[in-house]
Structures are given as C-alpha cells and as structure tokens.
C-alpha cells in the first residue's frame, strides 16, 4: 500500500501557514522519520496524515483514496504523545482496548502488558503502562500504516527500548509503514530507513 500526501498546506491563522506544500510518499515497508525543529508543525502533519484534521489545501491519499472518505476502521493509525489523553478516563482498560480490532495476546505480551491491568481505570496506571495499551490498540489487524508522534518522550529509557524493539519487529513482519517523529537522534537513527526534513519559512 502507498500513503501519499500531496501538496499539504496548513495554517491556523489566515495567511500564516505552518505547513506549506508538503509532499510525502510512503510505502508499507518503509520506516520514515520526520525531522524538523520544534514548532514546525510535525504534530499537525501527523494528524493530517492520519486523517484527524483536514489540511487547508492538498490531500492525503491511501492507495489513491482520500483518507477522509474512509469509513470505519482507518488503516492509518496514529499513536499520540500523551497516552493519558488518548484514553477515556471513565472506561476500564479492557473496554478501551476493545474499541478497535481484536488485539492478539502476542502483541500484549510483546508490549509487556500485564493481565491484571485490564480491570483498572486509566487513572490507576502510569503513563508508560497506558502508552503500551495505546500502542497495542493501534496495532489492529487492519492497520497498514502507523504514525508515532513522540510516543516515547515521556517514558523511561528501558520502556522505550522495550516498546521500540517490539514495534520494529512487528512492523517488519506485517509490512506496516511507519512514520516516526522523535527529537532523539540515536533513536531516529535506529528506527528510520529514510528521513523527511520539513523546512517551512515561519
């Protein structure tokens, strides 16, 4: 599969674009790192690529189909930087994870998710534990592209390596395209097969 961003521009205020004519093409076997200084719209780009927000101009195509026209489960899944905002605080973890595709035990184990966490509410888990759930949830059967926006910044290094080790094998086995935003260079070097550099004039 191919994910294409064609001529993406985006601005919150009229006349001031934080993204200007961005072009990206990613195939499902690739792992692409997005590089830009802070404040250059990386998070916005991630949200546009995964269909959360519409660009001011341009479109995002998944195998030629506009991502906003996709009904039901979206093959492009994004994992957000703040796991505590990505889960409904009123639901138990088992109900949260049940929202998407069924997640295999293999994935749960690979991410180090313990079974007794399932009956807890998000407030009873640490950020690292929650983020594992969010990653597992994004790895449904129908996922073809995974967008990771600073997903490990706030985790401790050991958890980071655990998560990334697993993600890299999983993505390779299932031929899922990966788009990564991180400010850590060594991490970027380990993950990305290719880099896209954003340099819009602010």
């Amino acid at each position, binding site marked *: 599969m191919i994910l294409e961003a064609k001529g993406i521009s985006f601005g919150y205020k009229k006349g001031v674009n934080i993204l200007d004519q961005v072009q990206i093409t990613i195939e499902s076997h690739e792992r692409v790192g997005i590089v830009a200084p802070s404040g250059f719209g990386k998070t916005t780009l991630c949200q546009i690529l995964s*269909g959360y927000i519409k660009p001011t101009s341009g479109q995002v195509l998944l195998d030629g189909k506009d991502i906003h026209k996709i009904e039901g*489960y979206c093959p492009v*899944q994004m994992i*957000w930087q703040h796991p505590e*905002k*990505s889960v409904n605080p009123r639901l138990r973890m088992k109900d949260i994870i049940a*929202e998407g595709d069924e997640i295999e035990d293999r994935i749960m184990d690979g991410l180090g998710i313990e079974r007794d966490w399932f009956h807890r509410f998000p407030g009873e888990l640490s950020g690292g534990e929650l983020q594992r759930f969010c990653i597992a*949830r994004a790895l449904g059967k129908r996922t073809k592209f995974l967008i990771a926006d600073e997903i490990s910044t706030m985790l401790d290094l050991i958890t980071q390596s655990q998560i990334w080790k697993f993600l890299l094998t999983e993505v390779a086995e299932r031929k899922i395209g990966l788009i990564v935003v991180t400010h850590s260079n060594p991490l970027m070097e380990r993950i990305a097969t290719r880099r896209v550099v954003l340099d819009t004039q602010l």
Partner: protein
Amino acid sequence: MNNTGSVTVLQKYQRKRLNQRGQTLMYLAFGSIFLLAITVLGTLVGDIAITTNFTQKNFLPHMAHPFGTDWLGRDMLARTLKGMSISIYIGLFASVISAVIAAILGAAAATLGKKVDAVITWFIDLVMGIPHLLLLILISYALGRGTFGVVVAVAISHWPVLTRIIRGEILQLKEANYIKIAGKLGQSKMKIVVKHMIPHVLPQFLVGLVLLFPHAILHEAALTFLGFGLPPEQPGIGIILSESMKYLSLGMWWLALFPGMVLMTAVLLFDLVGGSLRKIIDPHSAQE
C-alpha cells in the same frame, strides 16, 4: 557534615479531622433527608394550613404553635411547611423542564454545526440580556399571572446557564483525543455518543439540574411575593411573606421571620446537595 540521624521536617500537611469525602457524603445525605422531610410533611399537613381559628389569633411562637399563628389564627408552622412543599414541587418541575431544554439546546449547539451554534448562543445572550426577574414578570404577564403563569415562567427561563455548560462540555469532548481516536478505530457516531459522550455529560447534567433547584425556588417565591405567582388563597411562601408585610409595623415579627428562614434553609440545602453531588461526581474537585 555528619548524618545526624534526625530528620528535619520540611513541611507538615494540616490534615482535616474529618475525611473530606465522608463529610461530603454526609452533607449530601443530611440535605436530601431534610428536604424530603419538608416536602412530605408539607404535603401531609393538608388543610391545617388554611384552617382558621379565631380563638387563637396572633399568638407568639410557643409549644403548641412553634411558629406562632396569624391574624386568622392559622398555624404558621403548617402554613410554612405547606408553602415550602408547594415551592419545592414547582421548583422540581421547573428545574426538570429547564434542564431538558438546556440539554436539547446545548447538545444542538455543540453538534449541529456553526450556524445552529451561532443562533443558539445568540439566543442565550438575548435571554440573559433581560434581567431574570423582569423576564419572569414578562412571561408571567403574558400568561395572565397565577399558578400556571409562575410555573411556566420559572420553567422556561432557567435554561441559559446550563445550556452554556452542556454546550461547552460537549464541544470540549468533541475535541478530546480519545473520542477522535474511537472514530478512527471504526466506532460509529452512535456508539461514541452512547459510550463516551453520555456517561461524561450525564453526571454534569444531573448536578446542573440539582443546582437549578435553589434558583427556581427563590424565583418562584419572589414572583409570588410580587403578586404575579400563586393566588392569595394558596399558602405559598411568597404569599405568606407578602401578607406579613402588612403586620410588620404591628410588631408581628414571627409572621415573616420563620417562613423566610425555612425558605432560606431549603435553598441552602439544595445548594449543599448540588455542591456535594458535584464534588463526588466531578473528578476535578475530587482531591479537595
């Protein structure tokens, strides 16, 4: 520099004697029981409230008549309870109606697009532009005054604040990451509403509903006091107080003092119940 073995206390939290959460629950229970008691007693006193007894006119408060009697020998305690229970019924009815209007308008403003939102917010501004009591007078005037007028006036004028709250909550919720994620995970709009939105908004709605009560009761009493509300033969608190005005200069202080105190207590308790309910439900204030 040696390890002295002793430790310096840098800060000591002044703990409250009572467990806060327990205290809140206690308030909630106490308030609810008290209000329920007033309502039930007021309903039960029935005709005592309007029975005249000319042998017992103008009695100061004493054992047999704790709130005294009026110039027709009617027992003021019975009248007060009766009046209060009428006020509570009207308040209940009015709050529910206003809350339903608020829920519908708030949800519509937040979900039906920018134009609907603009119209509803403009309408809120409009209604809030007329001082509330004046609006009540206008509505009651339009309906020819009387019980029907006051009930409708109080019922259809208390929605703007709660509408704003519900609109804000839903708008905020729509922007919540977890709701957006649910959509991308293939959850239908209907399911998102049922599973995510309603469980979040419903508690706030209920708290809002309870907190409308004190306003509704006060406004009913005020409107009746001014002569727009309940008819004189009904022992409404507003009627009792407005009648008492004539006897104030004669030194019959008990006619006004006790009924007003009961009204104030009821309002205070409704506020307390609503506030306690919010503390228990609302996660933001949960740690206080």
